[in-house]
C-alpha cells in the first residue's frame, strides 16, 4: 500500500483543552520508529488533508473494547466489516431516526470511531415513519425472523467449514484434467480466498441484522428501570431479562457433562493424570470404555469449543478448540468436585426463581398502575429479544470468527509452503487486499516457473511492519480526540461502549475550579433563583425577605418561622436527612446541603441559583448597588 500522510493542513491542529475539547486527531504525532505506519492500512481508513475539516470537527473515541492493541493489517477486515454493516442498518435499511452511521479512522494503528448523529427535525420525522414500519415488522415477527436468522447463520458457518486451502501441486492431478473443468488449482485458490472473505462479510451482515433492534428494546427497558429506580445496577437490570439457557453457557455445560461422564465411565484417572490435553486424550482412549468418552468429547468439541478467549475481533483471540488446555483445566476441576461429592450442576431453578423474585419486587415499587403495565410490557419484549442478543455472540464472534481465523492460518501455511512467509502467523501482517495480490503473484510464479516476486518481497516487509507495530503497541492511545458531541444518540455507542455525556465529561477532565459554582448534597429537588441571604446568627433571621435564598452553616428547628418566606435554602453542613433538608422538602423548597463553603463564598444580595435535584449552587450575578 502507498504510504499516506495527511499532507499540508489548512489549519493549526488544536491541542486538548481540559473541560472543553480533546486534541485534534491531526495533533497526534507518530512515535519515533513507527514512521510509515500508514502503509499497513487502507487509504480510506486514514486521515487526509482533503477531508481534514470534516475529520477535525468530529468526536472520535478509541474502540479499546474490540481492539485493545494496534490493528494487524489483516484484522482490519473485522472493523471494516462493521464500518459498513452497522452503519448501513442505521442509514439505509431501517433507518434509525436519530442515528447515522459510525465512522472509522485508524490513527497510529489504533481504531477510533465516531457516531454520526441526525439532528434535522424534518429528517428525523421522515426517518421515524420508515423506521416504525420496518422495525415494527421485525418486532412483531421477532421469533420467526430469529429462527430464520439461526438457519442462515448455521448455513454460513457450514460453508465456511467447507473452505480449505492447500499449496498448489507440482502437477495438476489427472482428475483435474479428465473432468474437463478447464479450471485448475490456481483458479480455485483465488476463488476460495474470495469465498472466505465474502463469507466473513456475509456473517458480518447477519451480525447486525437484528442487533440494533435487540439493543434498542433492552435499552428502553434499561432506561425505564434507571428512571424508576435511580442507581439500579446494569447487572441487576440484566438479571431480570437474561436467559439461563443461553449458548454462551453451553461450552462450560458441556465440560460439566464430560466430567460427569468421566466419573460414570470410570475414566477419571487418565484425565487427572496429566495436564497435557493430548496425553490425557490418548490415555483415555486406551482405557476400558474410554472410546465412549472420546466420542462424547469429539461431539461436544464441535461446535461448543469454538469458544473464543477474547472478543473474537482479533486473530490473537484464540479459541478453546485451538488450545485445549483451558477446557481441560476446567474439566479436571469439575471431576475433582464430583469425586469430593460436590454438586456441579448450575442451580437453574434457583436462578429462575431469583429472576422472578427480583422482577416482581421491583414491580411493586413502581408509582402507578400505568407504570406497572409499561414495566410488564418492556420486560416481556426485552426477554423476547434477548435470546438473539445473547446467542448471536456465540454464532458470530465465537463459532464463526474463531473458525474464520483458523482458515486464514490454513492459507498462511500455503504462503509458507511457497516460500513467501516464514510463519503462518505472518499472514496477519498483510491487508486482505494485499493477500489477493500476493495470491496472484503466487499463481504467476507457479504458472511460469519464475520465482514469484513475493518470495523476496514479503519477508522484509513483514519484518518492517512487525517493528512498527511493536513501537505503536508501546504507545497507548488517547481515549478520545476531537470535539465532544452535544448528544450521543446512536444506541450501540451507549449500549456497547457505555459512552454517554458523563463519560465524555470525565475524559475531558474538569476545568479549573469554577469560583461561581458550589457542589453539595441534592437534598430537596427543584430549582430556584433568588437573592442570597447569608445568616450566620439567628439574630439576623428577621432580615429575611420574601423570596430570599437562605444561606447558612446549618439550620435549627427554631428557624421554622422563616421557611415560608424562602425560595430555597443552602447550608454548609448536613445530609439529605438534616433538618434543613427535611423542612425544605416539606415546604417544597429546593435545597442543597453540605456545600462546605456556602457561607464563606456567597454574599448577601448576590443573585444565586439553587438546583436541589443535582446539588449545585451557582452565583449568577454579584451584589447589585
Amino acid at each position: 500500500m502507498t504510504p499516506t500522510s495527511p499532507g499540508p493542513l489548512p489549519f493549526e491542529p488544536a491541542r486538548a483543552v481540559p473541560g472543553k475539547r480533546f486534541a485534534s486527531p491531526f495533533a497526534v504525532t507518530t512515535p519515533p520508529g513507527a514512521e510509515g505506519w500508514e502503509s499497513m492500512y487502507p487509504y480510506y481508513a486514514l486521515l487526509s488533508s482533503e477531508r481534514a475539516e470534516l475529520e477535525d470537527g468530529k468526536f472520535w473515541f478509541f474502540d479499546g473494547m474490540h481492539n485493545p492493541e494496534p490493528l494487524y493489517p489483516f484484522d482490519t477486515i473485522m472493523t471494516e466489516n462493521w464500518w459498513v454493516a452497522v452503519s448501513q442498518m442505521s442509514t439505509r435499511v431501517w433507518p434509525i431516526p436519530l442515528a447515522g452511521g459510525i465512522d472509522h479512522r485508524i490513527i497510529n494503528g489504533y481504531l477510533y470511531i465516531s457516531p454520526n448523529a441526525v439532528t434535522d427535525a424534518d429528517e428525523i420525522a421522515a426517518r421515524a415513519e420508515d423506521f416504525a414500519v420496518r422495525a415494527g415488522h421485525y418486532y412483531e415477527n421477532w421469533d420467526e425472523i430469529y429462527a430464520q436468522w439461526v438457519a442462515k447463520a448455521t448455513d454460513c458457518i457450514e460453508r465456511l467449514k467447507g473452505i480449505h486451502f492447500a499449496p498448489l501441486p507440482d502437477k495438476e492431478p489427472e482428475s483435474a484434467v479428465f473432468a474437463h473443468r478447464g479450471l485448475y488449482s490456481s483458479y480455485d485458490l483465488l476463488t476460495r480466498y474470495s469465498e472466505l472473505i465474502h463469507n466473513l462479510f456475509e456473517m458480518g451482515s447477519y451480525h447486525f441484522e437484528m442487533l440494533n433492534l435487540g439493543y434498542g428494546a433492552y435499552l428502553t427497558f434499561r432506561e425505564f428501570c434507571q428512571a424508576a429506580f435511580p442507581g439500579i445496577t446494569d447487572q441487576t437490570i440484566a438479571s431480570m431479562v437474561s436467559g439461563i439457557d443461553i449458548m454462551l453457557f453451553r461450552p462450560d455445560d458441556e465440560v460439566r457433562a464430560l466430567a460427569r461422564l468421566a466419573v460414570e465411565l470410570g475414566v477419571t484417572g487418565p484425565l487427572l493424570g496429566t495436564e497435557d490435553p493430548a496425553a490425557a486424550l490418548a490415555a483415555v482412549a486406551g482405557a476400558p470404555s474410554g472410546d465412549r468418552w472420546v466420542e462424547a468429547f469429539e461431539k461436544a468439541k464441535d461446535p461448543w469449543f469454538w469458544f473464543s478467549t477474547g472478543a473474537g475481533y482479533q486473530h490473537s483471540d484464540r479459541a478453546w478448540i485451538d488450545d485445549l488446555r483451558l477446557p481441560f483445566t476446567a474439566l479436571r476441576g469439575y471431576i475433582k468436585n464430583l469425586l469430593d461429592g460436590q454438586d456441579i450442576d448450575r442451580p437453574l431453578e434457583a436462578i429462575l426463581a431469583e429472576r422472578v423474585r427480583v422482577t416482581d419486587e421491583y414491580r411493586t415499587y413502581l408509582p402507578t398502575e400505568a407504570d406497572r403495565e409499561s414495566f410488564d410490557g418492556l420486560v416481556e419484549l426485552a426477554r423476547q429479544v434477548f435470546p438473539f442478543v445473547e446467542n448471536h455472540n456465540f454464532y458470530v464472534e465465537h463459532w464463526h470468527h474463531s473458525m474464520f481465523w483458523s482458515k486464514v492460518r490454513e492459507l498462511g501455511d500455503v504462503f509458507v509452503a511457497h516460500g513467501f512467509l516464514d510463519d503462518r502467523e505472518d499472514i496477519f501482517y498483510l491487508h486482505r487486499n494485499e493477500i489477493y495480490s500476493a495470491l496472484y503473484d503466487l499463481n504467476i510464479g507457479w504458472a511460469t516457473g519464475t520465482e514469484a516476486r513475493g518470495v523476496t518481497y514479503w519477508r522484509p516487509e513483514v519484518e518492517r511492519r512487525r517493528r512498527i507495530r511493536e513501537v505503536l503497541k508501546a504507545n497507548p492511545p488517547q481515549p478520545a480526540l476531537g470535539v465532544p458531541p452535544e448528544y450521543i444518540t446512536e444506541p450501540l455507542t451507549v449500549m456497547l461502549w457505555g459512552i454517554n455525556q458523563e463519560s465524555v465529561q470525565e475524559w475531558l477532565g474538569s476545568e479549573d475550579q469554577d469560583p461561581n459554582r458550589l457542589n453539595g448534597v441534592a437534598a430537596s429537588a427543584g430549582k430556584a433563583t433568588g437573592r442570597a441571604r447569608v445568616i450566620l446568627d439567628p439574630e439576623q433571621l428577621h432580615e429575611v425577605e420574601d423570596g430570599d435564598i437562605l444561606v447558612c452553616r446549618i439550620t435549627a428547628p427554631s428557624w421554622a418561622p422563616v421557611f415560608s418566606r424562602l425560595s430555597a435554602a443552602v447550608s454548609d453542613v448536613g445530609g439529605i436527612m438534616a433538618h434543613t433538608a427535611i423542612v425544605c422538602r416539606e415546604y417544597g423548597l429546593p435545597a442543597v446541603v453540605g456545600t462546605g463553603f456556602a457561607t464563606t463564598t456567597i454574599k448577601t444580595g448576590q443573585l444565586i441559583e439553587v438546583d436541589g435535584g443535582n446539588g449545585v449552587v451557582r452565583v449568577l450575578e454579584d451584589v447589585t448597588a
Partner: protein
Amino acid sequence: MTTTETPFVLRIDDPAAVASPLLGGKFGSLAEMTAAGFAVPPGFGVTTSAYRYFLAESGLADAARAVRTEARGADLARVQELSAEFSARIEDATVPAALEDAIRTSYARLEEEAGSARLPVAVRSSGESEDLAGASFAGQYDTFLWIRGADDVLTHVRRCWAGMFGPAVLTYKPEATADAVLDDHGICVGVQQMVEARSAGVMFTLDPVTGDRSKVVVEGCWGLGEGVVGGGVTPSRFVVDKVTFEVVRRELAPQESAYGVDPATGVVGLVPVAEDRRELPCLTDEEIDELATLAKRIERHRGAPQDIEWAVSEAGDVHVLQVRPETVWAQRRAEQLVAAPKSAVGHVLARFSGTGVATGKRPS
C-alpha cells in the same frame, strides 16, 4: 386518679400501649414496634392524659389556649415574648403528687430492670398530631439526652411540656394542618433507656429526594444520632437497593467530632472522634445490610414508607429508636413515570426517535 382508661404512665411493652393515642405518634409507634418484636430500648410514656391533667390541675389550661390564639398572626417578637412567659409558668407550676409518683415509680422500675442506679435515659416529646396531620414536625419538639435520676427526669418532663409553647411550635404550620387540630393537640413525654451508640443515625425506606421506593437510604455518623437528626454533623450516606441489597451509592464524610457524653460533666455534646475512626465509615457492610433488612421489615410491618432512627452499640447490636411514617412522598400524588402509556414496541420505537420512555420527573 390513674385508671386503666386514662393512665398517667404507659410502658411501651404494655400490651395496652399498642395503638394507644395516649402515647402520641412517636412513642405509640415504639409500643407497636416493641410488640412486633423489634429491638426497641425499654421505656415508658408520660401520657397525654397526664399532660392535660397537669394543665388542668395547675390552672393553666385556659391560658394555654389563649397563648396559641394570640400567637397565630402575631409578629415574631411577640411570639417569642408569649412563649417565654408561658414556658416559665409551666416550669414553675407544681406537678400533682399522684402524677409525680407514677413517673418516679416507672423510672425506678427501669433502673431496676437495667440493674443500674441513675440509669441514663432520653426524655423527649411525642406529640399527638405530629405524625398524623401530614407534617413531620421535624425537630419541633424537645429531646433531652443522658438524663439521670428521678429528679432530673421530672424536670425534663416539664421542659418537654413547656416546649409545646416554643415559638417554633406556635408558628409551625404546614398547609394541610387545620388550626383546630393544632389548638388542641396534646403531648406525651417519652422516657427511654439510652443506647450508648457507637454509631447512629436515620434511615428512610424510600429515597427521600426522588421518592424511589426501591431504596433504603441510611445516614449515619459516629456517636449519638443527634448529629444526623439535628444537622450538626455531616453524615455518611449509604443508598441500598432494597431488592438486591447492593449499596448503590456511598458518600463517606470524614468526622472529627461526634455527639457523646462528656465523662466529666455527664452532659451530651460534641466530643472528639478517636483518631483512628475519623476517616473510617461508621458502619460495616454487614451492619448496612442488617439496617436495610430491618428497614424493609419495619416498612412491611407498618404497611407504608417509614423514617427510622437507629443506633448501633459498641457491641454491634442494632436498636430502633424511633419510627414514624414518611410524610412528604406520602402526601404527594404518585407521579406516573411513563410519559404516555404505549405498547412495549411503541415505547421502543419512540425511544429510537428520541422520546425517552420516562418523563424523567424524578431527579437523580
